[in-house]
């Protein structure tokens, strides 16, 4: 099983289907009887392979919840999430973890790097989890950091890097496994405008070079402008899905 994932993923040989993510009537409800929050109210969505999709909308509309449900980080109450023709609700916790390790990369607003590890070690993490031997993992991590322009900073720990640099490390960590899908939750939310642009240029370049699907949640119009399609949400439903000029 592991070998399959490793081989599949590392070759960067993405799925033959055009639709990589699909949801049908996706519902997510939080809380108990007394305090129920209906966060997602029947989302139907299709995302194609290699597409960069921005999810926008006011705070509390369910963007992050949608991202978490799509990536299998959160459970769903009703409906289906199908990734690569695979309904993820059929996977148990361990299978889902393995699936994430091979198929997905994550970028967070607050980077969520492991403060006790160096940049290189942070990037090595997903590879090691996938069972890649340490020597190869170190080499791949180094290459990936070079690709995001941080070759000279590989031995630095997160607290010795700037915000932009930290996010680059997070991007390198998300991409190092060459996953099919990258989930980014407000990837530039903690950055200034020049860093924001740099990061988005980088993500756009990597997206086009590796044909990886990127789903990002953002408030920023600049970030959204890099996407092929903008999905707008409000109060737990998709109110629009519009292709951009890209």
């Amino acid at each position, binding site marked *: 099983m592991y070998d399959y994932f490793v081989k599949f993923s590392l070759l960067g040989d993405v799925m033959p289907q055009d639709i990589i993510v699909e949801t049908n009537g996706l519902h997510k409800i939080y809380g108990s009887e007394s305090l129920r929050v209906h966060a997602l109210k029947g989302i139907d969505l299709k995302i194609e392979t290699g597409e960069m999709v921005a999810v926008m909308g006011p705070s509390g509309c369910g963007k992050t*919840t949608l991202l978490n449900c799509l990536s299998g980080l959160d459970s769903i109450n009703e409906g289906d999430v199908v990734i690569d023709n695979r309904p993820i609700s059929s996977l148990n*916790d361990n299978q889902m973890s393995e699936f994430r390790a091979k198929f997905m990369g*994550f970028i967070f607003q607050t980077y969520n790097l492991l403060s006790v590890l160096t940049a290189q*070690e942070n990037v090595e993490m997903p590879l090691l989890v996938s069972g890649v031997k340490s020597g190869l993992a170190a080499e791949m991590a180094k290459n990936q950091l070079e690709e995001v322009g941080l070759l000279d900073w590989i031995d630095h720990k997160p607290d010795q890097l700037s915000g932009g640099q930290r996010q680059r490390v997070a991007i390198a960590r998300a991409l190092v496994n060459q996953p099919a899908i990258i989930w980014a939750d407000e990837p530039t939310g903690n950055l200034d405008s020049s860093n924001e642009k740099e990061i988005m240029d980088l993500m756009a370049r990597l997206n086009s070079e590796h044909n990886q699907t990127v789903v990002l949640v953002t408030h920023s119009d600049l970030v959204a402008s890099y996407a092929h399609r903008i999905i707008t949400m409000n109060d737990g439903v998709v109110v629009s899905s519009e292709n951009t000029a890209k």
Partner: protein
Amino acid sequence: MEKLFGIQTDSLAYGSGILASLMFLILIFVAIRAIVMFKIGARNLPRNPNQTVLIILGLMLSTTIIGASLGVGDTVTHSIRKVVFDGLGHTDETIRPTGSRFFGEEFISRDQLDRIKQVIKSKTNNVDGVMSLVEIVLPAENLSNDRAEARMTLRGFNHSETTAFGKLFLLDGTEVNISSLGKNELFLTGSSSSTLSASSGDQLRFYSTEGVHDFVVKGILKDGGLASGGSIKLAILNQSDMQNEFALIDKFNEVLLSNKGGIEGGLKYSEEITKNLRLAFSNAEVSNQMFDLLNSDKILDLIEKKIEINSENRSVSETDRETFGDFLTEIRKGSISDEFINLINDSRKRFLLFSLVKELEDSSLLDQLVFLSLDLGEFQVEESKKSAIEFAELIGSSTTTFLGLFGSFSIIVGILLIFLVMVLLSASRQTEMGMARAIGFKRYHLIQIFTLEGWLYAILSSLVGTLFGVAVSFTLVYLLQNAIGSDDFNISPKYTLTSLVITFSSGMILTLITVIISSYRISKLNIIVAIRGLTEEMVKPPEIIWKDRFKTLLIAIFWPVKVFKDLRKSSISFFKKTFRVIFSILPPIWLWQILKSIFSILSPLLRQGWPIIILGIIATYYGLDLLKGTYFSVGISLVILGIGTLLRYVFSKKIFIVKRINRFAASLEGALLLAFWGAPFDTFEGLTGELEFGVEVFILSGVAMVASSVWLIMNNTQIILWVFNFITGKAFSSLQAVFKTAVAYPINAKFRTGLTVSMFALIIFTLVINTVLSGLDNVGLNQPDRLTGGYDIQARLPKGFDIGDLKKNIEDKGFSDRISIDVVAKSVDVPSLAKDASSEESQFDELGLKIVNDSYFSSNKFEFSHYDPKYGSTPMELWLALKNDSNLAVLSNDVFESGDPFGPPQEGFLIKDFPSDSEADKWVERQILFKPNTTAVEDKVVTRTVIGILDPLAGNYQGGPGRGPYMITSDDVMVDYLGQQIPFDTIYISLKDGDAKEVVPILEKIFIVFGMDAVDTIGQIESEAETGESFNRLFQGFVGLGLLVGVAAIGVLSVRAVVERRKIIGTLRAIGYTSNMIQVQFLLEAIFVTVLGVLIGVGLGILTSWNIFNSISQEVEGLTYVVPWVNIIVLVSITVVFALITAFLPARQAAKIFPAEVLRNE
């Protein structure tokens, strides 16, 4: 217990109680004044009940350990006291004839008895009873059933004198009295009747040197009153009947006194009564003459010099110094006083003074004094009960001190845990506190919040800890009872109110002080660092403005002026002003201000390192001058730390290398300190000479070695990481991510990890030393001949009984088929005094004389630690030399100073000019003069040539003449020395075949008429080893309590790690960690910290026990160093398993964290 660490327990209880109450009251005051801060602090307790319970359990452990050691001490004291009260009953003092009981008894005559009674009547009103006693110890046999007892004590009382000494009751409760006994009738106590299986009407036969004596048992008595004898096998007789039967008419052994106030209450009069009677019985003329001799400037100067506290007098004990002081005061008065007579009549104090006079090298003065002292008094008055009770107190307090000493590691570990808990608490509230500071809270508000919260924890944990302490002490006592397992000594659990107060108060004081210190440290947070979660390294230290600091000191000195000035401007009410003034100028507050400002001036200087080096040099010099090892060691350590600090200071401005220099300095400090403290004990002896070390050095060295190892390792964690990456990269490729994080997190949190590692290391260190060293005791089991001399049985006979030819006796009695004897050797012990013939000194010191027969020389297998090669090089050759030349002798090994800080003070004859660690064949024969230590024989000085010193183990089963050193020589000395041939009282038997265990009861039965008391030597060694093993287990259990603290620390760390890393756990789950991997990571972290601590502890424990072993090996040959790996592996496994169990719940909690939930928070 009355004393602990040399302080009266009552004073300790009052002191700690008052201090704890004061702290309590001050905190109540602070809480009332700052009620908001109190509420902020206090609300945390109910907010997280699980955390509160965990904190209280963690904080209580120090209190529990203190409580347990005090409880065990109380129980031991109480149990021995009980034995004393049971044994002595109403008797408080005894009066005996002066002189020894050698060659038959010395007795008090009827006239003397009357005189004693008159004197007592005229000198004191606090005695409610005076009773004469006739006592003999004889073998007894119950003719009705053949049961026998080798040592039955017969006591004869005169009914008319017994009123104050309690009544006699039969087992059925009927009151009886001695006058009801007819001729040749007696009462037995319960324990004697069960030994002899005797009941009323049975006929008992006693064997004396004069023949047999038959008595009939009239009844069996309940213990208590006149029938008080403790574990003694006692028979009570009518005094006149006994005197007639045993030809002791008008002869009395002792006069017993009962004080007013009952069995326990009479103790308070004992000192006064003894003093008065000693005065009354002393020879005033002799005392006067002695006073005149002592009243000279040279003696006064000598005493004065002796009581000065300086390096020359380092060996003078506190008690001796006190005695010298008393003599000085009394002699200075110029005329003889009652106090002087009392002092000079106390034999211990008198000998102490004589040993001082000896230093004057005026032998005629000393001879006069010694000569006069022989006529000082007719009777010895002894505070029997008081001395025995004092002994009980001493044993009790020694037990507590011993447990406290070894428990101190656990207590230190407990304090570290309190510190850790407080630091983690603050870490969890860092942002909150930063915000509080940002909106205007002052630093002291944070101190108040934490101190008040900690105060509540301290109260609760001290309460719970005290209860647990009592419970643990009773559990240990239960184990102790099983370990001793003797019918003669029953352990009765006891916990005194004094101990309860000390436990609770000291627990609270320790916890509160730690809480206050940690609160102070916590309050020093940087607001930005706290709010943004940065590291402290990023904060630039404030610039030092010396002018301001000195100004603050000046203000602190005139603190009340500042308070008045500030309040004058204030608009608060007069009442509040007055209150604040009174509070602010309280000495502790004022003093605190001064100390704080002095520290603020000193601390930047100390950070420069050089003052620490100077301090270290001073301490080292002081240590070398006074020959105090502790000062020397602390001094050198300070110098090392000073060098490290100086290095850091010098390079602190070089920003690019500052990290490397810091690491280098820390590594240097750690490595040097470890090398210094871990070096063999005599490493520096060549440079420093022999230094004196107290017991405190044991704690100090343990703490220093552990601290320096942890310091060294925590500053070189990269190496550990590298090793781990290397290993995991090769061996566990699928789990390497988990391993990497499991090691990286603890290594990164240096402070908390270092603290927890230290906790485990300290405890394991102590346990490993104990385990390794207890293995050394097995030399007795491995080489029993060194202890037994190769004899299977050793039998003792009462003085005066001559058993004659043992083999022939056995044959005559028809037992030769059951007892097959190979060799019989014999000895008799004679109390003697001795001195080195070459010594200028005229003083003779106590040295027992063991006179042995020829067979002893040719049959024993005892070895020698030192010998004169002129007489041979093997034990056999040396013993043969002794056999062939009756002018030769050997000395026991305790003629050498032991230098053991834990051991009892050494008394008697000592060899001071020959080091005990010299090579075995370096002894050169020397002449020793000795004379009998008794007035019963003529004072005759005899010389023997000592050709060797016995192996230290040889003393154990030699049946030496009591405590202290002795000399072995041939029985040719007997007539010449004692003027007559006396019977041997110890018999050593080697069996041809057969089991000694089975032969012993047969021998005792055959020789009951001689009162033979025999032991199977190997069986004795085995049973002692077993008891020793039980004590070791008990001790290990006690010290092992400290492991609980370490395990609790792991729990606290794990819980905290889960809370701190929720988001990272979510991220790890997002990048593919399964929940099991998260759980494994947390468990691995716990194992890593535990194993690191355990490895340091095992390593240091083995190193230190190796050093101790080497040191002991210089004294005792033939010891082998064995590390009991199985025991250590079991110990380590138990520790790791417990740590795993503790970390399991938090790890499981971490594994259950739902990633979306924690990631959503951002």
